[in-house]
């Protein structure tokens, strides 16, 4: 069916007038204190669109065009980028910043442009009946917190009673996101939760780690980004905190987070929302994009954790655009159609395999009620000698019994504050 539709769209394209590009803004940050994370994500995001153009002739025959705008991870600049690029026919925004996301949510709802915040942003945006234009599949922060606790519970024979868990978090909207969930889960599992904040950018964490050394928690969960991650891992090594009991979220688990600490980082764990292996699609990217001189970077980070995630985000955008083209029967989709495509997106194992990235993420379906996907995450561990992340688990399911009521309560509060009547938007 998909192939037939694609053929039909191709035929329509051949017969019809020239179509405009499909515009995908990339609010990237290649400068500033968070550039080390922003660059590989942006490279992966852009390279995948370049691959689709070079290898497949675009999406449904229409070339994709990435409009890059530098935010430096600065919320004001992010909003400026949004305003500057939305008039170009933007189909979906991926700002890679929770701070920018919070500012864009009312704007995209008003402008009718979808916002995809993959594994970050406002967690309760998973409720599509309130946040009609915001999507955070395949997983969100509260899923991540729950997956971490499920993993630790499994490590302790299903019983965390009396265990001491410390959350070390970036003192920002992003870092504070999991606190409520971890508190709820503490009430359920009987562990003792302590939270310790680290101010931006996190270059100096001496007092935080002195406290951890003194309180001797069984586990430390980290919600960090940028230099905070590298310093925290080094400080953990300095106080000889057991690395296997130190778990970062999926924004604290890239290669550059662990390499500055060298061998001392061996055994550090982190969550991931996508598998990082040598996918066949990387060969295509090297052939069609890097060697053709069209890569966003120099090609050296192809296959790294954040490059893979950026590519995964672009793949989800492309698949949603294809879905939108199928739903509306046109190749030249607009932002409203894109939203419909995202809300009808279905990621199956067969689809991921066909795209050259088998098992990169969990299978999930997006619906009006659930913009958050399946919420699954896995745990990986750093092997310093090999310089690789090794997956320790398969995808772990979050505790929906705890998370769903939190999402409902938070999104309903947002709806009440903003005069939104929850319901499904008409296509």
């Amino acid at each position, binding site marked *: 069916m998909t192939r037939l539709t694609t053929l039909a769209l191709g035929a329509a394209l051949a017969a019809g007038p020239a179509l405009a590009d499909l515009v995908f803004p990339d609010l990237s940050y290649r400068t500033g204190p968070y550039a080390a994370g922003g660059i590989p994500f942006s490279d992966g995001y852009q390279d995948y669109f370049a691959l689709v153009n070079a290898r497949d002739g675009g999406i449904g025959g229409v070339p994709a065009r990435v409009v890059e705008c530098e935010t430096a991870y600065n919320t004001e600049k992010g909003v400026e980028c949004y305003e500057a690029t939305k008039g170009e026919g933007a189909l979906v925004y991926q700002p890679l910043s929770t701070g920018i996301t919070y500012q864009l949510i009312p704007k995209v709802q008003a402008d009718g442009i979808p916002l995809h915040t993959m594994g970050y942003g406002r967690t309760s945006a998973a409720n599509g009946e309130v946040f009609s234009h915001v999507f955070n599949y395949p997983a969100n922060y509260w899923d991540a917190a729950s997956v971490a606790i499920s993993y630790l519970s499994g490590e302790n024979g299903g019983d965390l009673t009396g265990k001491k868990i410390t959350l070390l978090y970036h*003192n920002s909207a992003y870092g504070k996101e999991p606190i409520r969930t971890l508190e709820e889960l503490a009430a359920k599992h009987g562990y003792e939760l302590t939270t310790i*904040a680290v101010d931006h950018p996190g270059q100096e964490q001496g*007092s935080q780690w002195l406290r951890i050394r003194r309180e001797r928690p069984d586990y430390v969960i980290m919600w960090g980004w940028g230099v905070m991650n590298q310093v925290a891992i080094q400080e953990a090594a300095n106080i000889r905190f057991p690395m296997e009991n130190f778990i970062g979220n999926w924004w604290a688990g890239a290669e550059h987070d662990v390499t500055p600490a060298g061998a001392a980082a061996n055994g550090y764990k982190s969550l991931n929302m996508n598998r990082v292996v040598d996918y066949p699609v990387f060969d295509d990217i090297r052939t069609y994009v890097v060697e053709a001189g069209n890569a966003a970077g120099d090609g050296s980070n192809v296959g790294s954790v954040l490059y893979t995630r950026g590519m995964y985000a672009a793949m989800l955008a492309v698949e949603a655009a294809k879905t939108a083209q199928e739903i509306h029967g046109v190749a030249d989709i607009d932002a409203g159609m894109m939203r419909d495509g995202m809300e009808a997106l279905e990621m199956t194992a067969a689809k991921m395999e066909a795209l050259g990235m088998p098992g990169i993420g969990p299978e999930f379906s997006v619906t009006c009620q659930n913009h958050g996907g399946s919420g699954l995450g896995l745990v990986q561990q750093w092997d310093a000698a090999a310089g690789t992340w090794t997956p320790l688990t398969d995808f772990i399911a979050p505790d929906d019994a705890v998370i769903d009521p939190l999402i409902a309560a938070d999104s309903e509060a947002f709806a009440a504050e903003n005069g939104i009547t929850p319901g499904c938007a008409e296509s």
Partner: protein
Amino acid sequence: MPDQVFFALEVMVNGLMVGVMYALVALGFVLIFKASGIFNYAQGVMALFAALTLVGIQQGQVPFAHLINAIFGTDIHHFGWQVPALLAIVLTVLVMIGLAVLIERIVLKHLVNQEPIILFMATIGLAYFLEGVGDLMWGSDIKVMDVGLPQGISDSIDRATFDWFGYGFFIDRLDIAASIIAALLVAALIVFSQYTREGRALRAVADDHQAALSVGISLRFIWVLVWSIAGFVALVAGIMWGAKSGVQFSLSLIALKALPVLMLGGFTSIPGAIVGGLIIGMGEKLFEFIVGPLVGGATENWFAYVLALLFLVFRPQGLFGEKIIERV
């Protein structure tokens, strides 16, 4: 004594150690301000640039490789050699001296006798320019600083304090190294300024520009000299902070930690930078220890400024700064 007291002592000692790290950054500001009246906004970026250059040289990285490859279609990144740490440090010092010469020739020379605010603006421009050039030269990926500095808990102090007090103190060996290096650096600066001809010229310019010029001291030479020394101090700070976090853009933000130190210690005093650093380091850590848990933590960034402001109210020139008297 209860554990809580020992822990407070441990926090205090660690605060003093961190204070030394802050003072290392503040020293660069003081040197330039004292000699030329310029508040060098680029001091933090100079630390980043120096650290990037050191690692780049050490790893045999080709400077401007991305630019070269983009223009000429080549694919070169490394020379294929590793430079020993000590030699790389010497070469980096030479680069920082070259940078000082360029700054004097291209920027400062043209701004002689301009208002301090103009010179300050020039250093803002310089900061952003250096940030971009550093990025272009060496790339923006996080680099590992490995010059053989020790790191991690000092077992001997841990054991000794445990034997004495029944409570093992955590002291990072990197902080101990930083304290020793800072002490040597200050001693060297004092010897240089007191016992060398150039040092005396530098002090003369700091005391009275016009008088120094009238006896034949070259202001341009002094500027190159002082920016070179500040570049060296920036390199030391870059090495120490880079060892903690890897060499990355955030290193330039350590300048923000030096500002309250300067406000407190005074902009013109080397001992002031050291004492200011110690007070800020200890003060912010103790405040975080005592008050942090009550207010949700993360108090260090703002408390350092509050502490500095309090000092400013009672002593605007800082603890050791020179009182500015303008007669009308």
